[in-house]
């Protein structure tokens, strides 16, 4: 209980610091040429609009007051107003967020589906030709950057084989499931391949180490079949680095998807953030940062909780503190 409270306090502190920091830096940028509202709205707008915008978003107050009003808006899911798009941030943020979430969740899911069995089997067949070949392959795919992989896979699957349509990000699974998956397949693959490669290597290394433990030898000496030794005894003892890495990846989802979003012209949060920063779109930047911070902190919390779920020693140590 005390642990949970501690974690929640941490979450709040990080959240406030980051969102406030983002606001201050954006405001410093906006203030530079003169009036923040004028900068935000662009050169040729009426004085009334500037005045009303200033008043509405408290741009003339000090940072703390402005931040306070922004926070209040957040509570009612009012993320403010995007001047360059001339609409409420909330309305056009939703599809962006969804696109990125789909990209991230699918790629992480498929990377795990590939990495875990591969790593387990590699560790089992350690130093045999299968292991060596796979190690080479994973090393290769780690080294291929997304900017190379994206055009390559696009050429193969979309242009040459024509298995998948040219992309539009507007298909939701509840509208057209097959279309949705066809749409996301290639971009997700671009993200999945390097992830799967990294995770395979990570898990293989830990598995190899675990398989040398005494308790694994004991499990074999009990007559436990190899598959059960691997999946029942060794894997659980080997997943800690993997869980940590998956956590980082989930947290860094937006940044990671940036190249793919840009290349496949999928309107996600990564590309949104870049455009928003360049166009001094204060409230969009702040909304995206808020979501990011929340994601990172929550995922970290999830990672910590899953450590405790996996390892009774951590669980018990925490129960005592």
């Amino acid at each position: 209980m005390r642990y949970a409270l501690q974690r929640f306090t941490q979450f709040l502190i990080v959240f406030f610091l980051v969102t406030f920091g983002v606001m201050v830096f954006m405001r410093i940028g906006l203030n530079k040429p003169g009036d923040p509202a004028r900068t935000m709205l662009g050169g040729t707008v009426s004085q009334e609009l500037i005045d009303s915008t200033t008043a509405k978003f408290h741009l003339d107050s000090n940072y703390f007051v402005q931040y306070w009003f922004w926070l209040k808006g957040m509570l009612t899911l009012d993320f403010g107003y995007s001047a360059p798009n001339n609409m409420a941030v909330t309305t056009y943020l939703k599809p962006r967020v969804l696109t990125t979430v789909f990209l991230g969740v699918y790629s992480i899911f498929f990377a795990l589906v590939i990495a875990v069995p591969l790593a387990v089997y590699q560790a089992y067949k350690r130093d045999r030709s299968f292991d060596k070949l796979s190690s080479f392959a994973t090393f290769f795919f780690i080294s291929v950057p997304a900017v190379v992989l994206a055009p390559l896979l696009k050429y193969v699957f979309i242009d040459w084989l024509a298995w998948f349509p040219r992309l539009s990000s507007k298909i939701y699974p509840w509208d057209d499931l097959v279309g949705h998956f066809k749409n996301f397949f290639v971009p997700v693959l671009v993200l999945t391949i390097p992830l799967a490669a990294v995770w395979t290597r990570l898990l293989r290394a830990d598995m190899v180490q675990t398989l040398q433990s005494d308790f694994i030898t004991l499990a074999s000496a009990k007559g436990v079949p190899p598959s059960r030794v691997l999946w029942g005894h060794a894997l659980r003892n080997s997943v800690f680095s993997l869980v940590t890495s998956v956590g980082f990846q989930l947290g860094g989802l937006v940044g990671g998807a940036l190249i793919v979003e840009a290349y496949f012209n999928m309107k996600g949060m990564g590309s949104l953030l870049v455009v928003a920063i360049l166009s001094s779109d204060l409230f969009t930047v702040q909304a995206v940062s808020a979501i990011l911070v929340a994601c990172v902190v929550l995922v970290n919390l999830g990672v910590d909780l899953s450590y405790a779920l996996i390892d009774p020693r951590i669980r018990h140590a925490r129960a005592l503190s």
Partner: protein
Amino acid sequence: MSNISQASSRDTGAPLLELTDVKTHFRTRRGLVRAVDGVSLTLERGKSLGVVGESGSGKTILSRSIMGLLPTKGTERHGSIRFQGQEIGNLGRKQMRHIWGREMAMIFQDPMTSLNPLMKIGRQITEPLEIHLGMDKDNAWATAERLLQDVRIPEGARRLHQYPHELSGGMRQRVMIAIAMACGPTLLFADEPTTALDVTVQAQILDLLNDQRKERNMSLILVTHDLGVVAGHTDEIAVMYGGKLVEKAPTRVLFADMKMPYTEALMQSIPKIDDPSHTRLLAIGGRPPDLVNPPNGCRFAPRCLYARDRCLTEEPPLRATDNPEHTYACWYPVGSAEYYQAKARLAETPVAVGGLD
């Protein structure tokens, strides 16, 4: 006490375990490591055998060779291992799996690292019961509780739901014993089962092992570097050096009349209760032989205080004393004329024994 499935008694009249010229060699970059180099011995049903030697004498590899628990890659196995009349020396892991846990079980040295830290004690004990005996969950857990009783762990029902880190070292070793005995094996290996434990707990664990052996009519192979450990707990002792068996005898006979200077040296390196305090222990000088290039002749000769030229060139065969159960491999055994000559010479010249200091 409980009457959990006793070991299946396939009485063939043959000894339980019969090793003939067992060799285990590892291919390494340095060359072929002859970890076990031609060991022959037999073990009767229900008897206990102590395998004694320094680190690197091959005692652990010997027990793992018998169990077939060695990595297959880079390992060469020669000779014959007959278990319950059946040749198992050439079986792969897949076939051995049905023997492991069921007919042969092993207790490891370090109870702190030998239990799965993420799995409840109960789960670790019931696993072999479910796999080998096909017990359902309730039955297996009830059996596990009885097993904990057998190894004298109080509050078994509660302990079963605990994790290894919640138990002391001695408790964990008891759990290990419970796991090993779960399916009522006929042969139990205990590889330095007390080395990692407090002295006060060591005797308890050894007594427990011995009691369980007698009660269940198991055979026990107790691997240790400590002659003191095997003294009161085994029927026979086999002394290993450099991958070879150098002396073997019933325990009483060995302690009364040891033939190998190596056995004698091991004996002298144990503190004795009636020595005055601050008596210096005799260490064996030098180090165990390189098993890639073992010395010619007797492998112990380079470190032996009584070695002569013949020892360095000609390897002594295993031969019996008047007692056919007592065999040793030495040209000039303890008690021979040459032994006393050498001893007298050593007494005159006050060299530090075995290169100590």
